[in-house]
């Protein structure tokens, strides 16, 4: 912005402009016009849905008579207060636990992958490997998750083979457990962690690593004191992408889970797509958004950076 020099007021003979927004726009409209598209995007796809979601949650009625707006705050009490028919706090807590654990798993798996691609591979292979990371996106994630359900089922190839060599007993199973759901989430979102970390690693100036070695830094010290801090922005972006996506995911728990893996994502889906209780679905979504918002805000304040460019 600063490179576009403002027109000198003396030339036009106009009085010195006051620093008001209007004047700034008039003098240099380009950035504001450019922001218009993004602003409209946020308005249409974020602000309006958010407000309409909140509004729908405050409606009362049923699918037969229709839903009318009545400031029905009571719906939140019915869902989350004492005496609620279903334990939505549990579903919410479970979703956050699954999402957080899946995020940790993607970091543990994704960081070495990104590091390998960024530093240990010949340049001509990098694009091919990045393509492999993203290759799974070519198939719908519902189908991929269903395939896992097939592979990991009790009579599926994996468990049958393990039972064959007596590594596991007859009662051992994977599907229906918390681990299966978390694994499914981590698998589906792995690329969302690898790519931002890769981008962050790629930008590290190799001279910094050399400098660390010149200063007698051991390899581990170089990694923990030079490389890792410089990828903070990548990990931060990855956590946002993976955690938000996993915490609201209804697919993994319904395909890989069992009777005690019900999450708030499934509750929203069932309220909306089975029972047509639009107000309940909207109330559950609103609570999920608020809770995720608070968690991420707190996280961003603690771990985030002030400089937005670090995140790109």
């Amino acid at each position, binding site marked *: 912005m600063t490179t576009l020099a403002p027109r000198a007021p003396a030339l036009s003979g106009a009085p010195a402009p006051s620093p008001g927004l209007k004047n700034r726009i008039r003098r240099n409209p380009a950035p504001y016009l450019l922001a218009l598209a993004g602003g409209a995007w946020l308005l249409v796809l974020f602000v309006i849905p958010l407000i309409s979601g909140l509004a729908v949650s405050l409606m009362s*009625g049923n699918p*037969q008579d*229709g*839903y009318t707006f009545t400031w029905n705050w009571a719906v939140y009490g019915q869902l989350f207060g004492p005496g609620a028919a279903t334990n939505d706090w549990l579903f919410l807590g479970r979703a956050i636990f699954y999402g957080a654990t899946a995020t940790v798993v993607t970091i543990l798996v994704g960081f070495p992958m990104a590091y390998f691609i960024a530093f240990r591979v010949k340049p001509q292979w990098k694009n091919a490997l990045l393509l492999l990371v993203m290759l799974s996106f070519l198939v719908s994630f519902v189908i991929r998750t269903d395939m896992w359900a097939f592979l990991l*089922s009790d009579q599926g190839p994996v468990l049958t083979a393990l039972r064959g060599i007596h590594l596991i007993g007859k009662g051992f199973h994977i599907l229906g457990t918390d681990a299966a759901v978390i694994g499914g989430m981590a698998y589906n979102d792995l690329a969302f962690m690898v790519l931002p970390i890769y981008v962050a690693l790629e930008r590290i100036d190799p001279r910094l690593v050399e400098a660390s070695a010149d200063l007698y830094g051991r390899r581990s010290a170089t990694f923990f004191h030079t490389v890792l801090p410089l990828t903070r922005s990548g990990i931060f972006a990855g956590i946002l992408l993976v955690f938000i996506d996993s915490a609201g995911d209804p697919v993994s728990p319904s395909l890989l889970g069992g009777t005690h893996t019900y999450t708030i994502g499934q509750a929203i889906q069932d309220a909306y797509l*089975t029972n047509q209780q639009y107000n309940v679905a909207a109330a559950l979504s609103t609570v999920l958004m608020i809770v995720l918002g608070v968690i991420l805000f707190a996280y961003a304040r603690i771990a985030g950076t002030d400089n937005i460019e670090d995140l790109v």
Partner: protein
Amino acid sequence: MGEFDRARFRGLTESRMSRRSLLRGALAGAGGIAMAATLAGCSIPGAKANAAAQQVDWAAFWKHQKPTRQLNFANWPLYIDQDKGKYPSLQLFTKATGIAVDYQQVIQNNAPFYATVAPQLRAHQDIGYDLVVMTNGWELTEMIDNGFVMQLDHSRLPNFAKYAADTVKNPPYDPGNKHSLTWQTGFTGIAYNKKLAPKKVTGFHDLLDPAFKGRVSMMNDNTELGHAGLLAIGVEPTTSTAADWRRAAAWLKKVQPNVAGYYDQSYIDKIQNGDTWLTQAWSGDVFQAQANGATDLEFVIPAEGQMVWHDNMLIPMQAQNALSALRWMDFYYTPEIAGTVEDWVNYVCPVPAAKDYILHELDDPDVANSPLVFPDAAVDKVTHNFRVFQSYDEYEEWNSIFNPVIQA
């Protein structure tokens, strides 16, 4: 500072309100009130309001319909005769009438399918299907009550009058078959894997047996699940009360430690590949599985009784090819076509005369003589009907009692 000066503290911590910020605040407040007023005016229209708005003269409607050469048919998976990816009965129909059929197996369960198309139906939009198949449950009642489906022109359905079984004529959920014709009838009982199960299964009480821990599956459809619970505690569903429902839900909760999952159509895959050993099951699914080689699978009419249901063909309002749909309905109600479909589908055939066709023309005595495809009096005696919900409130109460079983 000897004495604490509140005014000074306020001056330090709070910005002073200028005229401009006061104006701004007032504007924001007014905006907020305006928005709240807008919100108060907004609503999601119900189905009933729409139903009242439309009055159709059906005689005139059918008279002015023009024949088309297309039919878009939405049905459940594995619910029509198939041969190498083709549907012979539909091919016969195309050959006889010149109407091409786009057959889509998109219905996995009643409630989710209905919830998906309901917004379009309410807005009087074409849902893209000229024929849908729905079970006699709350959703079907709702579709009829709300005027979401067409009234049938029975003068164009001579085969239905001639061949239909008495059990599918004039059903309680659609008197006079004004809107619906049965596609298939079926039973909900239980099925188990004879080889893997540790014991012979005879009824719902076996679901509680710890020997089946983690090997039982039940349906995630509230209507089916709740009725299984009612049968298990020995209550006649059609006359049951909310107190009975609560007891049934308590029984289902007692089964839960044994349950691996509450499934939709996928339950049949899970029991076929041995992941589950004992499941709530639809009769036809089990026979199809047996025919496909799952010989260890056995369908059991529970000692406590089984449910019967009817899946019905309906023509949604705004369907583009209504005459084609009607034509297919009539075409289906013949011994040849119903028999061809039945020999593959193995539920209960709505055309009794198809029995001879299957026995003699298709030469398949196993199906023709099965009491679960062409039921006899003994089967009828242990068979119960679904409760017909009187209002949405009643249905909602049912849901609020049985939802917590699945949502745990």
